[in-house]
């Protein structure tokens, strides 16, 4: 096998599983160490730089980092990365003095952001301090997008949104709230140097079933209903509610219903429980509040009497694999089920809609009605118009919207300077030894045996009384510290130097996970089978180094390494060293520009 090129920034980045999986590549272990050290402010600022909304994300993030977390491969559960982010937000000092200041000098370029969701706000945050004059438009009076209008307040309090949206708007950004854009042309006419479209995926999918029209007064589109609740226009619902759909919107609908008068709230899903789109924890939270989730039921008809909804009829189905191995839902033949109810909430999908973009301005759409957008640069077919967030590639989540915002801001910065936007900046990386003494490191290399701690919650009876009462209380500093200690410091890399190695085997003998093998060279698949412990996880690399005196190679399976540093402590020659790998994504600004 070829010796590993550790100079390639992707190599060690991949070892930091959480950071690699985070769309914004937040330096997770670095902020977790700051939490361990009690420096919540530093932890917050690391997050703020990468993901702009630590307090919001610390409560609501989809957390793609957690299924990736190495801890989850070593024991049962990953580190509670997301909720630790909240710890940093909850216990930080005043961070305003640490925020960038509005640019003292403008650079003369004007940028329009349409929609004030996380994608647009990330663009604005990256560009304003660089001297851009950024104008953000939104049809709603307040900025925040779906973070404000969709996510219920019992998951995300208004104060947190106000604070973090405020940090962005305070950077000298002009926010024009309550202004719906009905024509892209009208914006193009205002001679902006670039336009960012961050209008989200605003349309809820409807279900055209018998009875839909007749019972319309009590059948609501989930996302419209949630925003109406959020604005305070809706404050009650019937006693018996059926929520159709298995995603996170369905979970927010059912839990909101429980707080607005719904006593018998039922979620009904076409597919099985495990295939539901909602995150595991959202399902748990709903069930914890006394909401049953019924699976394998397809809605057939809304029943009604005298123009009033009386219930929904469902057909029982099961999944079978067709000849091509595709999954099909077929009726089981059992009698249909009627669930009586007073209201139905439809949470069966979300769609994009761009009625306000004229067909002839130069922004091309594909046959599904989605804009043609370059996945790397976010540029549309009209060069000065960029798309990001849910508007670009369909509904995702906040952290993806932020990541898109960063990339689009880089493109806009380069575009306004006449640079080639296809040339993407490389990340800023560094690799620094953590050695302080023979067995002293700048990080705590002891491995905690604790299992994942649960986030304390408000008592359900109290939580259900008021839709604005936050359910999760968050970790207190003590629990936060204990949870932070579970992090394995995967950014502190084991760096091997073959020319120092005397092949004494000390590292092989001490490694608790049997990661290290000195053996004869071979092809990767052959090598994987010959290591001290089987290296079956093909998504994780084997670190290979030749140049040893005996002609063998050093092969280390990165998969389960605890980053405990024992190999380096036991090495007599310093052939292993623990070096902290830091990687920062290059955002808009001087760093992203061509060095010409």
């Amino acid at each position, binding site marked *: 096998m070829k010796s590993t090129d550790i100079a390639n920034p992707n190599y060690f980045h991949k070892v930091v599983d959480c950071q690699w999986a985070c769309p914004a590549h937040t330096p997770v272990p670095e902020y977790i160490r700051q939490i361990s050290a009690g420096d919540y402010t530093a932890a917050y600022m690391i997050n703020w730089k990468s993901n702009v909304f630590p307090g919001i994300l610390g409560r609501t993030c989809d957390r793609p980092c957690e299924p990736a977390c190495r801890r989850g*491969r*070593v*024991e049962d559960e990953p580190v509670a990365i997301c909720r630790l982010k909240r710890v940093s937000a909850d216990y930080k000092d005043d961070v305003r003095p640490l925020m960038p200041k509005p640019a003292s000098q403008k650079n003369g370029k004007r940028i329009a952001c349409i929609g004030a969701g996380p994608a647009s706000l990330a663009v604005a945050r990256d560009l304003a301090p660089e001297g851009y004059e950024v104008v953000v438009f939104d049809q709603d009076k307040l900025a925040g997008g779906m973070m404000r209008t969709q996510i219920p307040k019992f998951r995300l309090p208004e104060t947190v949104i106000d604070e973090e949206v405020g940090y962005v708007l305070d950077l000298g950004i002009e926010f024009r709230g309550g202004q719906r854009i009905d024509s892209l042309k009208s914006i193009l006419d205002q001679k902006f140097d670039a336009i960012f479209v961050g209008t989200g995926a605003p349309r809820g999918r409807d279900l055209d079933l018998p009875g839909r029209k007749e019972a319309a007064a009590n059948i609501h589109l989930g996302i419209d209903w949630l925003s109406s609740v959020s604005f305070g226009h809706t404050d009650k619902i019937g006693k018996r509610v059926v929520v159709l759909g298995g995603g996170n919107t369905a979970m927010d609908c059912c839990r909101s219903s429980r707080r607005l008068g719904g006593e018998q709230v039922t979620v009904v899903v076409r597919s099985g429980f495990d295939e539901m789109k909602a995150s595991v924890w959202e399902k748990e939270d709903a069930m914890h509040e006394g909401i049953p989730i019924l699976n394998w039921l397809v809605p057939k008809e809304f029943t009604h009497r005298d123009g009033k909804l009386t219930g929904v009829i469902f057909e029982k189905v099961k999944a079978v694999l067709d000849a091509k191995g595709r999954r099909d839902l077929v009726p089981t033949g059992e009698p249909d089920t009627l669930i009586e109810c007073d209201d139905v909430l439809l949470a069966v999908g979300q769609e994009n809609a761009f009625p306000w973009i004229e067909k002839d301005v130069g922004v091309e759409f594909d046959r599904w009605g989605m804009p043609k957008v370059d996945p790397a640069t976010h540029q549309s077919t009209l060069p000065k118009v960029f798309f990001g967030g849910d508007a670009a590639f369909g509904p995702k989540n906040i952290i993806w919207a932020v990541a898109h915002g960063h990339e689009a801001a880089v493109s806009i910065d380069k575009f306004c300077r006449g640079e080639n936007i296809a040339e993407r900046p490389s990340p800023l990386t560094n690799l620094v030894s953590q050695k302080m003494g*023979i*067995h002293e490191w700048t990080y705590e*290399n*002891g*491995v905690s*045996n604790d299992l994942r701690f649960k986030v304390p919650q408000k008592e359900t009876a109290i939580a259900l009384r008021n839709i604005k009462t936050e359910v999760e209380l968050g970790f207190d500093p003590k629990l936060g510290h204990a949870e932070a200690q579970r992090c394995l410091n995967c950014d502190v890399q084991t760096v091997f130097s073959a020319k120092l190695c*005397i*092949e*004494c*085997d*000390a590292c*092989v*003998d*001490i490694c*608790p*996970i*049997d990661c290290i093998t000195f053996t004869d060279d071979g092809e990767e698949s052959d090598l994987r089978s010959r290591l001290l*412990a*089987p290296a*079956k996880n093909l998504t994780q690399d084997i670190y290979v180094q030749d140049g040893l*005196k*005996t002609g063998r190679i050093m092969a280390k399976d990165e998969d*389960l390494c*605890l980053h*405990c540093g*024992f190999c380096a*402590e*036991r*090495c*007599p*020659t310093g052939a292993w060293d623990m070096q902290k790998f830091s990687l920062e994504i290059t955002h808009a600004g001087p760093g992203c520009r061509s060095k010409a």
Partner: protein
Amino acid sequence: MSYLAKPKFHHPDIETNELGFTHRDYEGSISTLCAGCGHDSISSAIMRACFELSLPPHRIAKLSGIGCSSKTPTYFLGQSHGFNSVHGRMPSVLTGANLANRDLIYLGVSGDGDSASIGFGQFAHSIRRGVNMVYIVENNGVYGLTKGQFSATSDRGSKSKRGVVNTDSAIDLAATALQLGATFVARSFSGDKSQLVPLIKAAIEHRGSAFIDCISPCVAFNNHEGSTRSFDYVRSHNAALNKLDYITGRAPITTDYEPGSTQVVKLHDGSTIRLSKIGADYDVHDRVAAMHHLHTRQATGEIVTGLIYLDGEPHDLHDSLNTVTTPLNELNTPDLTPGQKALDAINASLR
């Protein structure tokens, strides 16, 4: 050394043996020896061998003297019995323990100082008596614990770290053991576990005195240029006699061996050792030839490793003493004081 305890997490697919133990269940507390010490590798090989043989840890007794090497039993088999005797006295304590309870597996762990200097006499007598044990000398050519003085196994002409040349001739412990009648003699190298682990396994199964002289570089005081116990020197002068495969009785034989190049040796418990010969035609059953071979190769500066000698019909001290098969420590009052009738019978037989 490390301060922290070794993390308890292990590989989720870690192998288990017949007892359901993983190799980590054979660990002791974390080593306090210098990082990279050959002795730690030998500890590791011992743990591996016991794991592979599925030995119940509580049926093993580790005995040692004084020295870095003699400290190592603390670092392996944490659930076994142990006795750390005074300097050079491991063999007599082991002999006593073995007489009292013949059912345990005895691992005598010693150093070249412990066995070739202060304990030379004890070493000699335990071997010539044929105590059933595995006697391992972790041979680094120096007194490591007392900061690197030449030991009696250090080669004449070898240079100390400070540049002083050793003028005394060396004791070859393997050759001595052969001469003293050991029924299993081997030499190995801490840096070659593929050779060392099967040797330890075979030595454990051997019913007699099994002696392993294991070269073990002292990274602090004897791993420099001019030393004849450094990793580099041993690797470049290693004349391996054979490659070993230890096969337990039940395991089916899966590998095909080229005829002529392989010697199959049956052990008493039904297991086999397959020796793939390297280099010269060598018969492990010929004690005289073995001694000759050792001396010849040594004269050319080579270090002979591998299984040097094996007696197919070993004897044990218990055989010579004709002791009962029940361990002495399990004999109870009726066995030991059979009563007046029995005494009368004995007295009558002597009249």
